[in-house]
């Protein structure tokens, strides 16, 4: 195997770039910042590909074991429980290594051209490297607290990147919203960790999984034994950990931050909100998958249903959005719903592990074509300087490469055979078919809707209105289709979008490490292809030529359409909850109580003393005779006292 040193280099290189650009970037290195960032990512990508090659290809023996290349005790809590940082090689972590580094490299390359004019160019690359470092750290973590740590770092870097154009109040609000919602989910994750570590007496992944899955282990019985509000502690732990994952992967209840996160620069959305960060939740559930599958099927059930709902819900909203980045954001949410419920339907080991492999395969292929979609959209926005569909149309002649690559990506995501999306989605559907019919049908309908809204997007950008844009192409300030550095990533990713499907994923990634032969029957492939083609035809009919058919349908749908367009008013509900309840019902009274009651009590004591002092003061009236009287009374009292005491 390769030395731990060059494994460690993979995350450390982006970290070094972050420090370098962060401290010295602004003043000295800003012109050359892009080059530094990209080269360091290139080296890191090569190293991870080499690690993947040596881990998968040169692999001997039947089962892929998880190898801990390097581990160090970071913070000891007690003898057996401590946070340690390490580097673990495991089928899913190596796969994620490859995905993260490759997509991050593409985004780095793309940003060279896209972000050229920015004044905070170096800081942008610093934050991008920080993000890549924390994502890599998250992926290779060996300890559940290490994953939590890098989880927070990923959250902060997404906060910094979303709020990159910080002089736009909407960007600042979006970054705050993203961070607070994910932070709320991390709270669940933290409590989940506390529960699991309390019962398993360890934070280390391999031992944690071993202790909570071995049927005879005392830890497992203690975890299932103690219950709270009806559910066992283990279920609470796993559900809360899933809540953490759901927050980061924008699953249904906690998805409100993803559409607003589009305020960030488009390459950032491509990297963070398409390929890497949003799949962190899926990766987390995959990492703890044995516990979910073996010890606590209830939690897995919850994962399945939330995933399915999220997929369907997002697909419906995506059909109504006009901002192309928001369409892609909802499509990401829907695809992640796919991955989640694929994990949900899976069991542990052997044949019923198909869901797990399908989910990972979909994650792998989705990273490529979704990043491609975002970068393509970025190129379009870069030229048109607006996100709205209505300003676009007929761009296929002025942006040939973007057009072709965008088409490839749309075909891939819709699930048309030769492209990667078809293979991974078909595996998910067959896994769902074996496990749960209802989920299968939901997935089928969602696949159709996905095809529909993707091609709606495609036609609106590249076809429908012709004339309006000729003026745009010739005026000087438009960059045309963007520099070379923007085109290369598009081409590489489109190769990925086509080729990724043919990789025999089964014998690399599986729930228990054994090789898994992915069955490929034409029979159950027909249904998804048919549904996809139907979706595409409907979209062509409505949107290829500029016509009012789509407006008639919108009028017909009326209320539903408006609801979907406004994201079913979930944002407003959340806002109401936070604004009314948290701010007014708890925050304001807390501040008021502190100012008046607690502080008032202190001031009250002070004024009490002052009042007493005034009372005493009046005794010193200055009249000699008053003093004489008090003196007399005093003497008289003492005399009585003396007499009684003496007697």
């Amino acid at each position: 195997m390769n030395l731990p040193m060059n494994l460690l280099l993979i995350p450390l290189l982006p970290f070094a770039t972050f420090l370098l650009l962060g401290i010295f970037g602004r003043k000295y290195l800003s012109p050359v910042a892009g080059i530094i960032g990209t080269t360091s990512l290139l080296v890191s990508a090569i190293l991870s590909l080499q690690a993947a090659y040596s881990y998968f290809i040169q692999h001997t023996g039947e089962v892929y074991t998880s190898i801990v290349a390097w581990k160090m005790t970071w913070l000891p809590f007690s003898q057996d429980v401590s946070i340690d940082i390490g580097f673990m090689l495991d089928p899913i972590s190596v796969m994620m290594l490859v995905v993260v580094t490759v997509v991050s490299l593409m985004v780095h390359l793309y940003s060279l051209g896209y972000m050229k004019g920015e004044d905070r160019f170096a800081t942008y690359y610093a934050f991008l490297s920080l993000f890549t470092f924390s994502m890599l750290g998250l992926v290779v973590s060996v300890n559940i607290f290490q994953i939590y740590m890098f989880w927070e770092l990923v959250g902060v870097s997404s906060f910094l990147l979303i709020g990159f154009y910080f002089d736009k109040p909407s960007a600042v609000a979006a970054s705050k919203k993203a961070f607070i919602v994910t932070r709320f989910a991390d709270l669940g994750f933290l409590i989940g960790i506390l529960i699991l570590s309390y019962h398993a007496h360890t934070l280390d992944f391999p031992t944690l999984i071993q202790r909570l899955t071995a049927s005879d282990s005392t830890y497992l019985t203690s975890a299932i034994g103690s219950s709270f509000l009806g559910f066992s502690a283990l279920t609470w732990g796993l559900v809360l950990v899933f809540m953490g994952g759901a927050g980061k992967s924008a699953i249904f209840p906690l998805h409100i931050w993803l559409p607003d996160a589009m305020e960030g620069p488009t390459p950032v959305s491509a990297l963070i909100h398409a390929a890497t960060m949003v799949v962190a939740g899926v990766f987390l559930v995959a990492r703890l998958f044995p516990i979910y599958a073996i010890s606590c099927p209830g939690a897995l059930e919850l994962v399945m249903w939330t995933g399915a709902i999220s997929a369907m819900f997002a697909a419906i909203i995506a059909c109504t959005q006009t901002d192309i980045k928001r369409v892609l954001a909802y499509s990401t949410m829907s695809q992640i719903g796919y991955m989640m419920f694929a994990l949900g339907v899976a069991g542990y080991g052997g044949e019923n592990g198909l869901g797990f492999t399908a989910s990972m395969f979909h994650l792998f292929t989705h990273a490529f074509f979704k990043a491609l979609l975002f970068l393509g959209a970025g190129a379009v926005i870069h030229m048109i300087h607006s996100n709205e569909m209505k300003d676009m149309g007929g761009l296929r002649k002025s942006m040939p490469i973007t057009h072709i690559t965008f088409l490839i990506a749309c075909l891939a995501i819709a699930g048309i055979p030769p492209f990667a999306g078809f293979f991974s989605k078909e595996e998910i559907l067959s896994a769902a078919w074996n496990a749960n019919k209802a989920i299968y049908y939901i997935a089928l309908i969602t696949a159709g809707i996905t095809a529909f809204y993707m091609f709606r997007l495609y036609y609106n950008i590249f076809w429908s209105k012709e004339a309006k844009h000729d003026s745009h192409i010739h005026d000087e300030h438009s960059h045309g289709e963007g520099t070379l550095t923007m085109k290369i990533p598009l081409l590489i990713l489109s190769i990925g979008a086509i080729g990724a499907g043919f990789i025999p994923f089964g014998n690399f990634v599986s729930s228990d490490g054994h090789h898994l032969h992915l069955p490929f029957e034409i029979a159950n492939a027909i249904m998804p292809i048919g549904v996809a083609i139907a979706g595409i035809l409907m979209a062509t009919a409505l949107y290829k030529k500029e016509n009012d058919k789509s407006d008639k349908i919108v009028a017909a749908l009326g209320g539903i359409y408006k609801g979907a367009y406004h994201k079913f008013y979930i944002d407003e509900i959340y806002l109401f909850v936070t604004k009314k309840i948290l701010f007014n019902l708890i925050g304001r009274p807390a501040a008021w109580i502190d100012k008046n009651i607690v502080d008032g009590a202190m001031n009250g004591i002070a004024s009490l003393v002052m009042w007493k002092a005034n009372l005493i003061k009046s005794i010193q009236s200055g009249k000699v005779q008053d003093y004489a009287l008090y003196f007399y009374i005093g003497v008289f009292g003492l005399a009585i006292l003396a007499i009684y005491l003496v007697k």
Partner: protein
Amino acid sequence: METSALSFYLISAFILITGLLTVFTKKLFRAAIWLLSSLIGIAALYFVMEVDFAAAVQIIVYVGGIVVLIIFSIFLTNNEGVSMPAPLSKRKIFSAIAVLCGAGYTVMLLDQHVWMAHSANAYDPSVKKIGYLLVSNSPDSYVLPFEVVSILLLAAMIGAIVIAIKARPEEK
């Protein structure tokens, strides 16, 4: 009731009545006169108790000295004619209560208390013995307090002069 007991009761009644009158009369000068008569009554009491020296001193110093001094001060502050304003009602009530219960309590105590005489032999307060006590150098004599009192009197005199002296020029 021998004559001396009777005379004692008469004199003490006289003392008490004149005392009350000094305290309650409106006119300041008249109060001084009642004080004078009360002090004379006390001197008579000493005579009745056969302590002639004390009576003599009482008459010379108190009646002759202090009351005259008081009358002088009344004239100096020229309000011999004026009648004093009535005391504040609040103060009068409080002091009346205090004094009455004080007096009542003392009288009640005196009734129950039995006095223990320490020696039975006769009491002759002859002037020779007083003189011996005051100025002889025997260990139990009072020569030291005697000297101290004389110094005190000297100081009092100087003090009185300094306080009451006409305002010095620079004060004006």
